[in-house]
């Protein structure tokens, strides 16, 4: 800990205060990553982050800080949609892939129906699997227009019963997911997203610990 008394953590440096040995930020905001704390401070505020970290077990704090840093970074890049923009893009991607899988399986079933494989059960299994794919994590809405998509988008965001959050998210406004996709920065790197339950080391844009 001798080094911490010589080099304050990024948080204490930013806040221009003495970095105490028991500083709650020090393990997660090293001095060589000043931007990480600057972003988190700008979006969430130091006191809110302190409160959040104090409510968690020590072994959870690193992941929490990294995910907060990621959210803060996303929000600064996209002040309107933040993380939600990326979620929308990924949902769209997943939906496209599921459609492609559905088309491919339907094409495959033609061969099976012709008896080339000779296994009718495979066709049934494929159709069943295809149906299950669409249920998935319930994050993907159905088709239809924007309004319909809006409805499904909100209800599908929460796999658990979180109707109150859905209503609050809606806020009575027309939420257009297509606008989300348009507003996301083109420089986003999908590989850098933090992975839950993994130890996170460096972050900046590489919150992904793997």
């Amino acid at each position: 800990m001798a080094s911490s008394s010589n080099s304050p953590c990024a948080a204490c440096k930013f806040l221009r205060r003495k970095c105490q040995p028991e500083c709650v930020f020090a393990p997660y905001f090293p001095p060589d990553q000043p931007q990480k704390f600057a972003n988190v401070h700008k979006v969430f505020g130091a006191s809110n982050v302190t409160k959040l970290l104090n409510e968690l077990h020590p072994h959870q704090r690193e992941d929490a800080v990294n995910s907060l840093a990621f959210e803060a970074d996303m929000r600064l890049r996209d002040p309107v949609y933040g993380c939600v923009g990326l979620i929308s893009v990924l949902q769209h991607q997943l939906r496209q892939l599921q459609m492609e899988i559905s088309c491919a399986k339907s094409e495959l079933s033609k061969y099976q129906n012709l008896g080339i494989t000779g296994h009718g059960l495979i066709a049934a299994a494929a159709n069943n699997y295809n149906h299950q794919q669409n249920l998935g994590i319930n994050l993907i809405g159905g088709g239809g227009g924007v309004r319909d998509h809006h409805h499904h988008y909100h209800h599908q965001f929460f796999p658990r019963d979180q109707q109150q959050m859905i209503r609050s998210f809606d806020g009575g406004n027309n939420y257009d997911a297509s606008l989300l996709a348009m507003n996301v920065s083109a420089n986003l790197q999908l590989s850098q997203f933090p992975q839950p339950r993994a130890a996170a080391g460096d972050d900046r844009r590489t919150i992904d610990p793997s």
Partner: protein
Amino acid sequence: MSHSRRCAACKSLRRRCPKDCVLAPYFPPTNPQRYACVHKIFGASNITKMLEQLPVHLRAVAADCISFEASSRVEDPVYGSVRIISQLQEQITEAQTELVKTKGEIAFHNAQQQQQQQMQQLQMIHAIAQEGEDQHSWLSSSQQDPFPNVNQQLLEDYNYSNTFFGFEF
């Protein structure tokens, strides 16, 4: 009137809600939980700053997104909405694998079908060739013995009698 019409933010902050309150349009008093989450995670001044820097026509969407992130974080203090991103990434990877596998199976069946068609064509060609060979062999054999069933002695006798008497029958 301003007391009863205070937005959820001003109510929570126990202050008067001015007519030009930045937060009032997006945090109605009918939904106190929405503001409570946002206040806990981001804080009143941060929210106000974030919304103020945006054009008015984008503030509603921004407030919705901020509310969503805040409520996700309240529900999951470690990962918040980042968990959804992770799960989506995972699902995308699985879907990509599934798609590649299915396309591979289609390609396999296509190749099998083509092979079967080629084999059928070869069989047809072979059948035609065989038929042709059979006809050829029939013709060849008929030239060597035009009357395979006729008694050869009788033929010889006929030819002798024709040539000995010098005239033809």
